């Protein structure tokens, strides 16, 4: 069994024990007020779940027993029989036996169906009272006076957040100690501190892992959703799910669940062609929708690929120009990938409803915003006539991220690695001025440059370009919306895991930053929000052009 399976089993056991306790106390209460319909409904529901869950885990003895008892309570609920007299003792005996089986759930040899007991329970429904008297005399051998407690506890996310926050502070203190130890040059102190270092690391890891869930809880809902949409659209879709056991922060998963459904809907309704159209293009009648999750380098990638008609970049450009979202000039300057990024512009989505790539853009700006809000990224890749892929890069955790640190002027800043494309040290001649804009000539690509010093601290863009007259210029190239941007920084620092604290009031209005982190030196480091920077840059650019 993998660790994950063990964990799941522990959770299952805890839940089973808990519902057993509820059933058990429910029946005791029912004995006091036999007519209580709410109690009867509760017990019925719990038994029903117990039957289903234990059957799924192949625990037949418990499942069979739960089934028999469920039938009894179904009959009680429908007022065919009443919970009273002699039959209560059989029910109690059944419940006791269930408790016995659950307590010994890890002992396969004890997991046997007690046919005699099942028969007696079934007899209740047939109103056969004769045998019951006999049972009443028997002492139930399953009850034990030992109280069983579950091995797991459930904990609120708020508490986990608090713990994670405290661990962040612990780590800051720890890093400070490491520096002292180096200065003190005392092997004993260094030894002790490296021990603390290791422990703090493990605490952080454990707490982070405690928040992780597998994406399967979300993926499991897709077959039904795809089936429903496909049926109403009269299409045949083969859904392929991969990497359902990839783990991700529970909060991230809940944020993206609506987004995923939107992308699936888009793919089935607009991406994949009708059966006739597919036949005409020599494609298989059945459309393919592949949803795949993988984790790499501290992030989770979820991609949704359909083998539909694809999206034509030139058609998008034309539409964007028609709608006056961008100028003709600008449209010409965009490469195919960047053109696909136009789908995420607000205003574009509404406009695209009636075109041949109908609806591919509907609500995509909202999808994009949701993913931006958790510091992720969404890219579109497409081959006309063949396929479209929506690729989401998501942080595994919301509060701890791998980031690249650098300095602008005297202050520290960071960008999450999630948004990073590469780091480049440019020579003077690679940087060009084009009517007030800075452009980097980089591997056959022209990337717009943002001089952070001016962008952050001065009203006018690129005023102090004189500062750029240095031999080597450090550039952090980031991704946003299918487009690359180069951020010119004053001094590159290092890569590191950072604990992000959200901005507090009254500074929480700031869009430029997704939070603050404390460096080991005690200094403050602002975490830049790449999405906001790109948006501010684009807005400024368009006002210049119009």
């Amino acid at each position: 069994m993998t660790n994950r399976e063990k964990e799941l089993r522990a959770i299952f056991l805890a839940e089973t024990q808990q519902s057993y306790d509820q059933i058990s106390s429910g029946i005791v209460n029912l004995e006091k007020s036999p007519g209580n319909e709410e109690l009867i409904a509760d017990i019925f529901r719990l038994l029903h779940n117990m039957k289903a869950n234990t059957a799924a885990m192949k625990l037949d003895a418990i499942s069979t027993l739960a089934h028999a008892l469920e039938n009894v309570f179904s009959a009680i609920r429908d007022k065919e029989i009443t919970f009273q007299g002699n039959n209560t003792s059989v029910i109690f005996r059944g419940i006791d036996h269930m408790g016995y089986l659950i307590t010994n759930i890890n002992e396969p040899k004890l997991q046997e169906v007690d046919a005699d007991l099942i028969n007696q329970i079934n007899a209740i429904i047939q109103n056969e009272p004769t045998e019951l008297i006999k049972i009443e005399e028997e002492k139930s051998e399953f009850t034990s006076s030992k109280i069983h407690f579950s091995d797991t506890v459930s904990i609120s996310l708020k508490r986990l957040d608090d713990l994670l926050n405290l661990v962040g502070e612990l780590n800051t203190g720890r890093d400070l100690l490491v520096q002292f130890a180096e200065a003190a040059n005392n092997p004993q102190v260094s030894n002790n501190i490296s021990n603390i270092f290791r422990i703090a690391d493990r605490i952080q890891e454990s707490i982070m892992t405690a928040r992780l869930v597998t994406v399967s809880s979300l993926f499991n809902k897709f077959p039904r959703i795809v089936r429903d949409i496909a049926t109403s659209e009269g299409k045949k879709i083969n859904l392929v799910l991969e990497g359902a056991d990839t783990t991700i922060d529970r909060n991230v998963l809940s944020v993206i669940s609506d987004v995923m459904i939107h992308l699936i809907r888009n793919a089935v309704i607009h991406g994949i062609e009708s059966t006739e159209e597919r036949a005409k293009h020599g494609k298989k009648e059945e459309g393919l929708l592949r949803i795949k999750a993988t984790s790499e380098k501290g992030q989770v990638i979820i991609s949704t690929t359909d083998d539909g008609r694809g999206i034509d970049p030139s058609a998008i450009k034309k539409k964007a120009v028609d709608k006056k979202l961008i100028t003709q000039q600008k449209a010409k300057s965009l490469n195919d990938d960047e053109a696909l990024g136009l789908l995420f512009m607000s205003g574009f989505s509404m406009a695209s409803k009636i075109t041949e790539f109908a609806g591919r853009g509907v609500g995509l700006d909202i999808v994009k915003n949701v993913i931006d809000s958790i510091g992720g990224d969404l890219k579109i890749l497409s081959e006309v006539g063949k396929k479209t892929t929506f690729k989401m890069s998501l942080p595994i955790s919301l509060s701890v991220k791998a980031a690249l640190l650098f300095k602008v002027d005297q202050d520290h800043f960071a960008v999450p690695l999630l948004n990073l494309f590469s780091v480049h040290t440019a020579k003077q001649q690679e940087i060009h001025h084009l009517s007030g804009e800075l452009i980097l000539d980089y591997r056959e690509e022209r990337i717009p440059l943002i001089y952070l010093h001016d962008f952050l601290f001065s009203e006018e863009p690129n005023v102090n370009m004189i500062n750029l007259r240095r031999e080597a210029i450090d550039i952090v190239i980031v991704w946003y919306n299918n487009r690359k941007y180069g951020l010119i920084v004053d001094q590159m620092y290092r890569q590191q895991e950072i604990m992000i604290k959200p901005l507090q009031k009254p500074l929480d209005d700031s869009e430029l930053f997704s939070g603050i982190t404390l460096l080991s030196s005690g200094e403050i480091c602002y975490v830049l929000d790449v999405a906001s920077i790109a948006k501010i840059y684009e807005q400024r650019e368009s006002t210049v052009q119009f």
Partner: protein
Amino acid sequence: MSVKEVAAKAKKVKEEQSYQFVTFVLGGEHHAVKIEHVKEVAVTPKVSKMPRTPSFIKGVANVRGELIAIVDLEERFNMKPVLSLNSGLNSKTYTIVIDADTYTIGFTVNEVPNTLILTDSQIDRSADVVEKAKIRNRFIDGVGKAVGGDLIILLDILKVLSESEIRQISK
């Protein structure tokens, strides 16, 4: 005054409602805020300026593990700074941390803040001067008189730093 008289006077003072304040100097004038709003007073740590915020927000500082926005009240009140945060990089300033319901914020002062107890009778909330000052400055709660005879402006600090106020100014 006899011992008895002194005791009687002290008793009278005791019976009156009294308030405790933290006093500090802004723009050469004495100011005070109610002590219950003050979380702590610390030597100002390094302030990292936060880009694209109003200039009276000096940035964020790490005060005992908490990341707090630092405000320059002299700038906020358009007072002539006696010694601004920037010009006095080498001199020690103190940060008074204010704990409001929804936010924590700090503001810097140049001299060590003091505490002061004032009774109701020592606080003037209605005098002409106060009224006049109030028109110009809605954050003034009243004027108090310290033992040495100094007049002290009592600030309603929660009003000074209300979110809407800051947002208005930042726009």
